[in-house]
């Protein structure tokens, strides 16, 4: 469906080039929900913005390809890109709750997106909005309301309806539930799951929250400091994670099931500054298994099982444990 191949996106900063995304590759299969996971500053949002070519001006794609329907999106003109954006690939932004225009009724905002992407009549727009509102669980009667008349969860439903308005093939959702309360979050995740089947979309879900991935995704790409460290089916990732970072991250999530007596573990240290010199394996320094080779030789993303890839020199040794 979509192939990201050796993508490098750097930011120009006063401290020098910041290698936010440095050689990232993964596939999005048709019909799947792929989780792109990592902590702050791992480059996950930069990957998304590179795909739809909406990077801020200080950022630049320095290399790689993004293949979609046989074309490299990075080689397209801005004009051609406009047809792809929203029409073929749409995005639900982080902080979506604040990205609706407060002075326009919501139906106008959805109509705007549709009209920009093809000749549609008013009646068609109306019919689509009714269908979309029903699909996301909103009362179509409320289409003329303004954003402030909706709750946070409902606004997120509107954003999802908007992302589906032009029948995209791929939807990228950047932290779609982060600002929502747990119960509403659960409702939105269920909604996304049913819409995927109903609208036959493929989806990239960007999140820092592994539990969101566990609840919704089919596969996950784990990123750390601008690199992919592990890719796998979610059963592989959650039941037998291989990369030391994935393992440590899973262990540090406070779990309800774990008795209070058991110590919570955490990852000592912090993410390296990507504008400065970094060790060859970027997790070196925080990794309990780190050795000299990790400092000098960058680990390749090796295929470990038919459905998984890991970038660690010691994956064989680790997966035996």
């Amino acid at each position, binding site marked *: 469906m979509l192939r990201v191949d050796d993508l490098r996106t750097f930011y120009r900063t006063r401290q020098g080039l910041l290698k936010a995304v440095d050689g990232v590759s993964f596939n999005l299969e048709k019909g799947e929900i792929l989780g792109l996971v990592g902590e702050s500053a791992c480059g996950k949002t930069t990957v998304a913005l590179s795909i739809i070519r909406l990077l801020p001006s200080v950022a630049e794609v320095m290399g790689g390809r993004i293949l979609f329907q046989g074309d490299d999106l990075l080689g397209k003109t801005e004009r051609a890109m406009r047809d792809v954006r929203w029409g073929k690939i749409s995005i639900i932004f982080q902080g979506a709750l604040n990205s609706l225009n407060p002075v326009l009724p919501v139906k106008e905002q959805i109509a705007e997106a549709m009209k920009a992407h093809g000749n549609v009549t008013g009646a068609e727009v109306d019919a689509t909005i009714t269908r979309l509102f029903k699909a996301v669980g909103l009362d179509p009667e409320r289409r003329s309301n303004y954003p402030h008349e909706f709750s*946070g969860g409902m606004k997120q439903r509107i954003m999802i309806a908007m992302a589906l308005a032009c029948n995209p093939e791929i939807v990228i959702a950047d932290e779609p539930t982060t600002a929502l309360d747990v119960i509403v979050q659960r409702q939105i995740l269920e909604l996304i799951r049913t819409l995927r089947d109903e609208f036959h979309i493929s989806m990239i879900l960007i999140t820092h929250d592994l539990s969101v991935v*566990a*609840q919704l995704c089919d596969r996950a790409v784990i990123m750390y400091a601008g690199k992919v460290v592990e890719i796998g089916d*979610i059963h592989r990732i959650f039941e037998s994670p291989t990369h030391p970072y994935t393992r440590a*991250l*899973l262990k540090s999530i*406070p*779990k309800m099931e774990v008795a209070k007596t058991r110590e919570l573990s955490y990852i000592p240290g912090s993410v390296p500054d990507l504008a400065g010199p970094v060790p060859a394996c970027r997790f070196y320094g925080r990794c309990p298994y780190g050795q000299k080779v990790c400092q000098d030789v960058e680990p390749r993303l090796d295929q470990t099982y038919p459905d998984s890839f890991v970038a660690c020199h010691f994956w064989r040794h680790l997966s035996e444990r």
Partner: protein
Amino acid sequence: MISRGSSEPLIIIKDLKKWYPIRKKFLTKLRAEDEYVHAVDGVTIEMRKGEALALVGESGCGKTTLARMLLRLVDPTEGIITFKGRDLFALNKRELRKIRTQMQPVFQDPYASLDPKQTILQIISEPLRVNNLVKDRKQMFDRVTAVLSSVGLAPPKSFLDKFPYELSGGQRQRVALARALVIQPSLIIFDEPVSMLDVSIRAEILGLMLKLKQEFGLTYLFITHDLAVARYISDRMAVMYLGRVVEIGPAEDVCLTPAHPYTKALLLALPTTDLEKRGTDIGIRGEVPDATHIPAGCRFRPRCQHAFEKCMIDPELKRVGDDHYAACYLPDTSA
């Protein structure tokens, strides 16, 4: 684990209410009755010295408003709060100032709560200077370096001249903790102190908070929406819904044998990495109603599967176990 605190209450909150009036146009005001947002709507809690009490609930449940009243940042519409036996709202300015040094807040966003133009030394020494708690520069310097090592920023001297932007999120939250601790308060009020931090460092900060509590004999009021975090840090837990406490009890009991259907739903909706729990039904529908139109009777009634006629009468907190109370006519701790 039952509360480690002694029985002497440090804080008594009684029938506390905070209603915010909704501003209306003049004409509508003449025609209709005044409307209010019932942010906190009758809360009674006692806090024991040395305990960590978690206040959990979704946004808009009133947990932050409650904390703001405790800090006397807002005045209540009704009700009282006593701190060490003294009525907080009967104090004059001088007395208030003095009592405030005994309670310190730590906020959610360590990026916004530290002045970007001040050095770490200036930030942490400010409460000392404002309250005239140090005689000279040397004493101030000593207090600041001591508290920096308590919060694990070592060596302390290397941090004094740094600015917040030079620190990571976890380090900033340690500075915020140090600023709260430096004047030796007896109570710290945390408002979502770890929710902005990356998962991999969250546990480290939570562990530090527990350590400091023991070391300095502190009492914690811990506001969070995350039940897993609440269970980790607290001795007792109070669950709030639409301005009321619907369940309160020892943290372990509330989490393992919840009695109120809302607490149960919150626990079921808790994000989990357990793949087997994918798509489980959480048993409630809809969203929290807005706090201007509180449902009659039990506030949770419109969303509750078990509601029956009696629920039209507002339920009070009733004992369901040891030190464990729930506001429900059909409490069920069998879960």
